[in-house]
């Protein structure tokens, strides 16, 4: 069991599941059965994708090459998240709000006036797109560290936790500190990506896997410093 992978996969997947749940809840308002059908079709599509991609990749691509590709993809994924999180915390980008996203989705479906079909299509699209990100997380984390079990388990715990919370609250999960989670996940994904891509390219990390903790601390310090710096810039701009 790889604890680093389990925690990273749990946090990253939970963020995606929270977003998917908001979309599905909006679709449920227009019909429970069609929304459920949309979710089911999306889950089946994702399962086929994981089976084909996962099996295909592991069978035909050497592990060292795979680690390199996965590291680069994970790094790009992490850089995207960390950038977004820094901009959000510095006040240069609106914070993500699940209640607003839910209201927007309901309004969009009301204006289309197609009811059941729209509910099914919305649930399908939402689950497929957010699920695709979960698939990327599981495939990259799992193959990068030879820890598919830990990546899948982390993700499954995230799914159960989000479903339980969603059932308990019966509303969009706006109380989940999603923006903070995204900040942490961005730092973790960037650290994992740096570690694996670097390793595949010949970098010798002095503390082996424990270097991950140093990278996480390093990126956390750097990101916090950037947020502070950008916030000061925004304040100066407002005064000026």
């Amino acid at each position, binding site marked *: 069991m790889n604890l680093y992978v389990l925690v990273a996969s749990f946090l990253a997947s939970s963020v995606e599941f929270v977003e998917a749940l908001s979309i599905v809840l909006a679709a449920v308002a227009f019909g429970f059965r069609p929304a459920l059908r949309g979710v089911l079709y999306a889950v089946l599509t994702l399962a086929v994708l994981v089976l084909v991609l996962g099996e295909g990749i592991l069978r035909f691509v050497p592990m060292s090459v795979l680690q390199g590709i996965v590291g680069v993809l994970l790094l790009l994924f992490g850089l*995207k998240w960390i950038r977004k999180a820094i901009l959000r915390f510095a006040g240069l980008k609106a914070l993500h709000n699940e209640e607003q996203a839910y209201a927007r989705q309901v309004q969009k479906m009301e204006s289309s006036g197609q009811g059941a079909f729209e509910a099914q299509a919305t649930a399908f699209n939402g689950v497929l797109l957010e699920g695709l*990100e979960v698939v990327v997380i599981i495939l990259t984390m799992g193959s990068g560290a030879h820890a598919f079990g830990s990546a899948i388990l982390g993700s499954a715990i995230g799914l159960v936790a989000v479903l339980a919370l969603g059932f308990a609250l019966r509303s969009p999960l706006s109380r989940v500190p999603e923006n903070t989670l995204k900040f942490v996940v961005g730092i973790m994904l960037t650290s994992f990506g*740096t570690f694996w891509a670097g390793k595949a390219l010949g970098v*010798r990390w002095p503390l082996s896997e424990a270097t991950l903790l140093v990278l996480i601390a390093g990126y956390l310090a750097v990101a916090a410093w950037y947020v502070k710096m950008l916030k000061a810039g925004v304040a100066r701009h407002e005064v000026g």
Partner: protein
Amino acid sequence: MKWVRKVYGLFVEDPLLAGLGLVSLLAAFLLSRAGLAELAGLVLFLLLSLSILISVRRH
């Protein structure tokens, strides 16, 4: 084509940041090939941190 864009969007939001990230990896690769495999890690971290700074400052 729409799906290609979606998959691209999964990994890239700011093309400059993605490009700088790849250049940082190239620098780390060249350093490790030159026999400086331990220094390459530090350089990679610093270059990536700098790339993030450039990207967020030009937002």
